[in-house]
């Protein structure tokens, strides 16, 4: 009885560590199957379809039968008249968002943190987080109403002695309306992360600063802001990492041919050319170009920040 068992053990021993480890985590693998399937199908398999960016894709012929054209689609885009317009609009909207929306949340968080009355503070937080949950469709519908030349915003402008103008029909105001409504929707929501960080600031720092004669503003500047800095940097890297992205959903609801000059961004252009006009290869190429450039920006921002500030995403 004992002898065959001993002979069997020898080959077994080799395989055991890996098998036993697999065995130990077998439920993990089982649980991960649907998750991995999701990522493989909807994210990694999608990358296969990206090859049409390098083809003259014809739906009738399929991917296998379509002609390979190399970088032609990319060259066509970058050499075309619209490349600069859509890249510029994308970058400008993002720059305005960083300059105004991103900083607005930080400032607003510092202000809310100064409030002593906790109940009022809760009310303010509840009210200012709410717009974040309103759908883009409704926000754009409201904007369309309020921006009309006889709409509410123009009523206010007229009161201030300014001329009435249909704000969404005028390319001059598109980005302002776009970014301002974004601030309206997200300024409160953006404060959450900063407020949570501020509650963790050691009170003795404030006491020490107060004893040294620092006023309120000085304490905000020298205690609260430095405490927020690591969070701000990480948020900023992530924000800069979306420098080439503007969601097309809000743009296509708000823009019109009259405002394309300032409103058309890369994603809305991809949508229009690729899906509406069914120029799949061209749309895929512009989209791929966008994703790659964006990834490069994110990686660079992260590397830059790690070197300069010591904070990074990974």
């Amino acid at each position: 009885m004992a002898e065959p068992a001993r002979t069997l053990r020898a080959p077994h021993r080799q395989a055991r560590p890996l098998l036993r480890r697999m065995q130990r985590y077998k439920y993990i693998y089982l649980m991960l199957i649907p998750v991995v399937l999701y990522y493989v199908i909807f994210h990694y398999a999608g990358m296969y379809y990206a090859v049409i960016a390098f083809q003259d894709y014809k739906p009738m012929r399929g991917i296998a039968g379509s002609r390979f054209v190399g970088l032609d689609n990319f060259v066509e885009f970058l050499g075309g008249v619209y490349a600069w317009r859509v890249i510029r609009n994308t970058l400008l909207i993002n720059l305005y968002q960083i300059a105004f929306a991103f900083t607005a949340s930080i400032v607003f968080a510092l202000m809310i943190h100064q409030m002593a009355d906790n109940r009022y503070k809760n009310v303010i937080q509840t009210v200012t987080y709410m717009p974040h949950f309103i759908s883009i469709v409704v926000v754009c519908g409201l904007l369309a109403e309020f921006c009309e030349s006889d709409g509410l915003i123009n009523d206010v402008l007229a009161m201030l002695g300014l001329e009435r103008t249909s704000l969404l029909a005028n390319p001059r105001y598109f980005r302002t309306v776009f970014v301002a409504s974004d601030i309206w929707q997200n300024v409160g929501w953006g404060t959450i992360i900063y407020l949570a960080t501020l509650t963790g600031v050691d009170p003795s720092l404030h006491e020490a600063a107060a004893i040294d004669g620092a006023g309120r503003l000085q304490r905000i500047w020298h205690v609260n802001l430095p405490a927020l800095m690591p969070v701000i940097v990480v948020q900023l890297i992530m924000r800069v990492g979306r420098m080439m992205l503007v969601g097309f959903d809000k743009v296509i609801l708000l823009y019109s041919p009259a405002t394309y000059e300032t409103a058309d961004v890369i994603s809305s252009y991809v949508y229009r050319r690729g899906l509406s006009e069914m120029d799949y290869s061209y749309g895929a190429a512009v989209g791929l170009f966008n994703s790659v450039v964006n990834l490069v920006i994110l990686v660079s921002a992260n590397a830059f920040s790690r070197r300069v500030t010591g904070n990074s995403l990974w």
Partner: protein
Amino acid sequence: MIEKRDLPQRSLTALNYAIITLVALLCLYPCIHVLAASFSDPVRLIRHRGALLWPTGYSLRGYQTVFNNPNILIGYGNTLFYVLVGTAINIVLTSLGAYALARRGWPLRKLFVFLFVFTMYFNVGIIPTFMLVKGLGMLNTRWAIVLPVAINTWNLIVMRTSFAGVPDELQESAYLDGASDLRILCQIYVPVCKATMAVMLLFYAVEHWNSWFTSMIYLTDTGLYPLQMFVRDILLFDGAAGTTEDANAIYLKELTKYAVIVVSIVPILVVYPFVQKFFVKGVMLGSVKG
């Protein structure tokens, strides 16, 4: 001395409160305006100028038009389906993934974190995704609305961080009692992390409730459209006030816009206050780098 320092400090506090209150009122105002307008008299609403804090005149004709519109009911039904089925799929898959990624000692953890997070930073774009959905035969089916967004990687990371905070001892004692991983997930992790679960539920549900452009891209059958698509048609494509219509119809159209907005956002506003207190947890966990 004290007086001298006190005055500027106090005016600073007052200024702070004033600005914050103003911002909050600006956030709140459009909602009040919409609510007031939706109960107004159509003709008086059109003539009304400036702010609106209370209905001008009173009528329920906007709501009557909305509820007599068969599309609104179809949209509500479809949206309810997408929210319930979609969120259920989201929560199950996200919890399973988060549990695996939070599992200590599992050697492949880092590899999978990378594979999943990479998709967050590199998106192939809408055209390949559209072709993929088409290739899977999901165009114009309900699956196209819920499956491509089955996991939000950001939420997955948030949940993983939350699960990683569950004390080791709880898990180990459950193992010794012979509980399987699936059971540990359902009976220990989910109840312990119920605040995070609540926030995830809300985030996913709101995402489905507000989603419209996946429907626009993937669906052609209006019978499958969610509410937001019909809301969009009413709000933004109102046929530019057709010339054949009489003035009353145009007035009513304006009123209907406000009523449909109210009808479409009320469900969210009802749930929102109950989950709001958990937000800090949900948002903070996502900010932990990993």
